[in-house]
């Protein structure tokens, strides 16, 4: 599926490490399941029939390939040529469907009939509930109580699709805590349950497997850029929470001359924080205090409200292949409106981070071609943005940075 030789984004080593990051830091109870999953994925990914069934689902069910839009209006404002990879146009409204179709198909192949997932903004939860409905699998989604409040529409969508949404009530009651609860549920039901992790994080093989399922983003974008622009973009930009949409699009350009830029929320800038740590199964960069307690992220975007980051991003940062920048909630909201008003595209708050950085860095980017992965559409966020604009106190509470 890849158009590149994977010099910079190939397979991790046998221990699941990308350079010095990654690994398998999970309770012993889960180790046999991690090893079984690694074997099952390796086998499936080498199997042409699995690959073709996955491709078929991506095209016939998810609606791929997603488009590539050259945005002339906003390019006037920015002074660079902005090109969007339209993951917002996929079924369920974000890139998350790629990974979920891959994993639920794998779960089916492994004979698992019950799926557990965590979700932040609800996009991964909705995608998982969708695929579980399609495959007839039982589905439980853990979501932080704070996120349930700010993403009511997605909660209802999941329930409509037949999933059970369970609130994560501990800690900051956001994505980090939803991951904790999903991992505890997995520890308790590992023999019957498939854990459909939503990003390129967690223990090996998840960071690798989830990237492979999202590689289609980069492969399509590479081909589309060559068709429409006659070559590679100068810069490839993506928002980074756990970092799945970013590794997806980066994988298509890692071995080109394009600069790769990941944009984190300033309140959850794990790579920006720059301190290695271990949580949720892998070694990566992690927002933490001097004693190793994990800090609670704070971002207007529920999907990026996470103190860690996928280990491959830590590796790409360490070797200097990608750079990581951060933006504030205020900058994000401005970018959200700018894209809506210039192009008639309402982005999700997550990719609005990418656009916010492009706007901020427009002098540096002048005259360049910039590819932004528009990882999701903004329908889920309009009520929250409306409340923020109206000065709603509770909504403002969710954006402190």
């Amino acid at each position, binding site marked *: 599926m890849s158009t590149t030789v994977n010099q910079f984004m190939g397979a991790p080593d046998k221990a699941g490490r990308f350079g010095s990051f990654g690994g398998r*830091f999970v309770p*012993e*109870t889960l*180790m*046999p399941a991690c090893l079984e999953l690694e074997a099952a994925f390796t086998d499936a990914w080498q199997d042409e029939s699995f690959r073709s069934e996955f491709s078929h689902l991506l095209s016939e069910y998810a609606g791929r390939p997603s488009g590539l839009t050259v945005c002339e209006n906003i390019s006037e404002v920015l002074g660079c040529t902005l090109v969007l990879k339209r993951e917002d146009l996929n079924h369920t409204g974000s890139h998350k469907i790629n990974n979920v179709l891959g994993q639920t198909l794998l779960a089916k192949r492994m004979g698992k009939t019950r799926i557990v997932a965590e979700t932040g903004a609800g996009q991964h939860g909705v995608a998982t509930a969708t695929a579980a409905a399609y495959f007839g699998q039982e589905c439980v989604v853990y979501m932080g109580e704070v996120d349930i409040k700010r993403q009511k529409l997605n909660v209802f969508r999941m329930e409509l699709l037949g999933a059970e949404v369970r609130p994560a009530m*501990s800690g900051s009651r956001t994505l980090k805590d939803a991951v904790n609860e999903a991992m505890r549920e997995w520890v308790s039901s590992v023999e019957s349950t498939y854990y459909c992790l939503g990003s390129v994080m967690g223990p090996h093989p998840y960071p690798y497997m989830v990237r492979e399922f999202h590689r289609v983003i980069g492969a399509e974008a590479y081909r589309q850029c060559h068709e429409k622009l006659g070559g590679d973009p100068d810069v490839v930009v993506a928002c980074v929470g756990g970092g799945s949409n970013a590794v997806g699009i980066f994988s298509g350009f890692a071995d080109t001359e394009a600069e790769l830029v990941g944009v984190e929320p300033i309140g959850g800038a794990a790579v920006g924080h720059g301190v*290695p740590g*271990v949580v949720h199964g892998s*070694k990566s960069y992690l927002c933490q205090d001097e004693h190793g*307690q994990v800090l609670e992220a704070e971002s207007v975007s529920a999907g990026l409200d996470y103190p860690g980051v996928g280990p491959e991003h830590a590796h790409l940062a360490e070797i200097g292949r990608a750079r990581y920048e951060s933006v504030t909630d205020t900058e994000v909201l401005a970018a959200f409106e700018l894209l809506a008003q210039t192009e008639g595209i309402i982005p999700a708050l997550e990719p609005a981070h990418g656009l916010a950085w492009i706007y901020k860095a427009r002098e540096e980017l002048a005259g360049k071609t910039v590819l932004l992965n528009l990882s999701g559409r903004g329908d889920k966020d309009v009520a929250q943005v409306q409340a923020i604009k109206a000065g709603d106190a509770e909504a403002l509470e969710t954006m402190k940075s």
Partner: protein
Amino acid sequence: MINLQESFETKLAGGSKLLVPYVTGGYPNPGWVELVEGCVGVGCDAVEIGLPFSDPVMDGPTIQESSKLALEGGVTAPQVLAKLAKKTFEVPLIAMTYYNIVFRMGHQRFASELAAAGFAGAIIPDLPMEESVDFAADASDSGISNILLGAPTANDDRLAAICEASDGFVYAVGLVGTTGERSELASSSLDIAKRLKSLTDKPVLVGVGVSNPEQAVEIATVADGVIIGSALIRRVLDTGSPSAGVEFIASVREALDAM
């Protein structure tokens, strides 16, 4: 300094079953050091000290709550170790924490501070065998045993490798789940204890889900001893006082001694 395995084997040779309570370092505060002393006073064979972590994925609601309260009280791992370093206990202490605490402090510093505080071992539930090689070596240099967990989900080959690599004793995970009390003893507790006992001469202690004296006795018919956390901490959470926890541990000791 006490060698964990030798200490346990001496007790076992005397016909005694091993009892290891778990206390969350820093909860209740004040009172947790007294809780440790009380448990030693009623005849436990080691004390497992939890160094609280923000994201304890192996722990159920009870230990989550005590960890959260300890952290909200501002406790840190160095503070817990410093308090224990001022005391002398007749039995070994065993640290229980998550790997990021160890990683952030550095293996060697963590192990040497444990040793200085009277610890003989460490249990790090999110550091499975494959990831623990470096830490085990660094810990051993300071005389600290890295104790590995054997879970019901593992096959016999994996359990055998864990038994080989585990130092001090082997921690048998009693059930497929997080820490916490269960009204009935999981049949997996006896199964995993039997499997591990057939694979190793090292002491085998069962933890996770051991909830009362009757369950402890049933497990001890197969295993060398039990580790009890949530059932103890829940009593302290309910009463706000260490004494209810100490009385409970005394009742488990009594039941094990009557076997």
